[in-house]
């Protein structure tokens, strides 16, 4: 009989362990971890030509867009109310946008990398034996720096 009492104290029979909050939370959080598709690559030639046409970032334009949509889309009054002076939220948006753009323009650094074999070269030369055509490519990873404007 005493043998049985040991079994009696053993853990309960459970089917899936769902009675544990940790497993429930793990299941729920797992639902949000679906992978996203990578963005499409923009054709390099188009980038080379078109990048020159970009106007660059503007804190004022950014603030104007945000303030406009906050009023029209979210219904938040962004104009001056009851003659209390400038709308504080609008001012805050402007400051925030200008500071963010300024920070990006003055502090951000762009690092790009050139894959080995992606820069192809063809060189023509000559020696006593006649003309020589040399073909080659970059063999190591190459890093470049840039800024955001």
């Amino acid at each position, binding site marked *: 009989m005493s043998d049985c009492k040991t079994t009696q104290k053993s853990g309960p029979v*459970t*089917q899936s362990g769902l009675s544990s909050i940790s497993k429930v939370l793990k299941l729920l959080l797992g639902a*949000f971890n679906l992978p996203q598709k990578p963005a499409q690559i923009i054709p390099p030639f188009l980038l080379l030509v*078109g990048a020159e046409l970009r106007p660059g970032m503007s804190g004022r334009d950014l603030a104007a867009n945000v303030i406009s949509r906050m009023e029209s889309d979210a219904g938040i009054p962004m104009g001056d109310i009851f003659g209390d002076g400038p709308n504080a939220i609008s001012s805050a948006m402007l400051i925030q946008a200008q500071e963010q753009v300024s920070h990006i323009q003055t502090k951000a650094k762009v690092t790009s990398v050139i894959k080995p074999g992606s820069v192809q070269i063809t060189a023509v030369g000559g020696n006593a034996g006649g003309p020589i055509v040399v073909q080659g490519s970059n063999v190591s990873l190459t890093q470049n720096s840039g800024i955001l404007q």
Partner: protein
Amino acid sequence: MSIIDQKTKVMGNIAALNVITEGLPKFKLTNSFSSMTNSTNSTDFLLDLVQSLAGYDELKSNIVDIFSRKLPEIESEIKKTLKEILKAYVSCGVNPSVPAWLQSTGPGVTLKLSDIDFFEITKIDPKSPFGFLFYDDTQSGLNSTYFNTFLYSNIEQNKGDFTPDGGISSPWGLSTNGSNILDLKFSPVSTTKNNIIKINTNSNYDNKTLTEFNNDFIDSISLFGNQNNIDGSKILNGIIDNLFGTVAKTINKTKKQLKKEAEINECLECILNSDENDVIDDNYFTFDNAQLTKIEIQASNRKNGIRILETCGNLPADIPISILMDVNMSLSASTIITTGITSLEESKSKAMGDAIDKLADAQASNASTINIPTVKLNFILELIKTFMKAIINIILSPKLMVLFAVNFKIMYGQLSEYENGIDFMKKNKNLITSIAKTVLEQNIKMLLTLALKHISIKLSKKYSDDTIEQSKNYISQVLTLVGVPTEIIRQIQGLDYVGA
């Protein structure tokens, strides 16, 4: 990451999904949910989560689905667990055959009726006006397919025999399993105690193993009524009586009895709220002052047939017995196909939906118009919470307590005893915990499925919107590179640009 951080992350992800997929936040602040603590209670957290995602109608249809369709599946899971636990009980050093003293010619197991009837079910006559609320197959007496009706019939048959250990044994099993499994006899008087139940295995089991006896007995029992046509009324009545004391008040249960029931339910609540890794020790079966106060209040409220709605200024709510009986009549009628109904399933679902609406309306009748939607939603949440306790109460009713008591005697010795329901639970912690966790898992599975269904809908909308956004962004970026004006690009992106 701590439990509260993980809970906050789940709620935060959903709040973000709501904004992304529906525009503006509709979500309550996460800190307004009572479950947003380090508590390990999965049910409370999932209920908070689900009520943020689904409204009254969807929660109701989920409950309807469970009561009208899923009970056979739940019953099957519970029976599987019971067989596993009882097999573990008898396969550890004890002779697995039916002990000689339990066999048809032995002295058998002798118990007080109160040892197997913690909820005083046998004080209600199955044939009385309220009998059908808790019994099934109420008119068949000793041939009933419902064990509690069979038990009551034996009590009724023998209650006038005052010879010590008198009365006639009745066999159980033929009506449901095709052959008899045990013999049971109620004696109002015995040499040492009164109101005694004597149990022997039927002679069919003299040469069978204890596991065969246990399994066959479990298979012979229906938890929620007629196994082939469950209407969900028994579980619904159990929940309503647990919450509002509708039947307790009507049959005039004593305050002492209601306190005993509240104590059992308090223990069950603690076990249901425990985490998987918690050790269920003896502390789970004792009460501190706060619990004693809660037990006292619950017993008083049930005695008065009311429930205090704390979310509605401590408003007393009740469900009159007449409404509960009407609802039961409708549920019972739904098990027969009538004109205009395409299937039995549809008939039962519709009746259960109507029943829940009627009960929700009745208990909200004292609330002010503005509070009615909240009171009705809370009613549905309470149905889900109390569902687990109501199932375990059914398992701890005589129909299975007879079997548990027999196994208890085999485990601890023929003369061993337990004082009351709490003592039984304490001495059978593993059994009770396993039952509780099985029931809890069924409930969590249901809530989790509902929550994940809503999260999936939102996520699929988000991912479909993401793909559209990615394409728009790609096109916009390409267009900026070929000199298309910003205003046109913003229109393509769906941004209502009005700025300079």
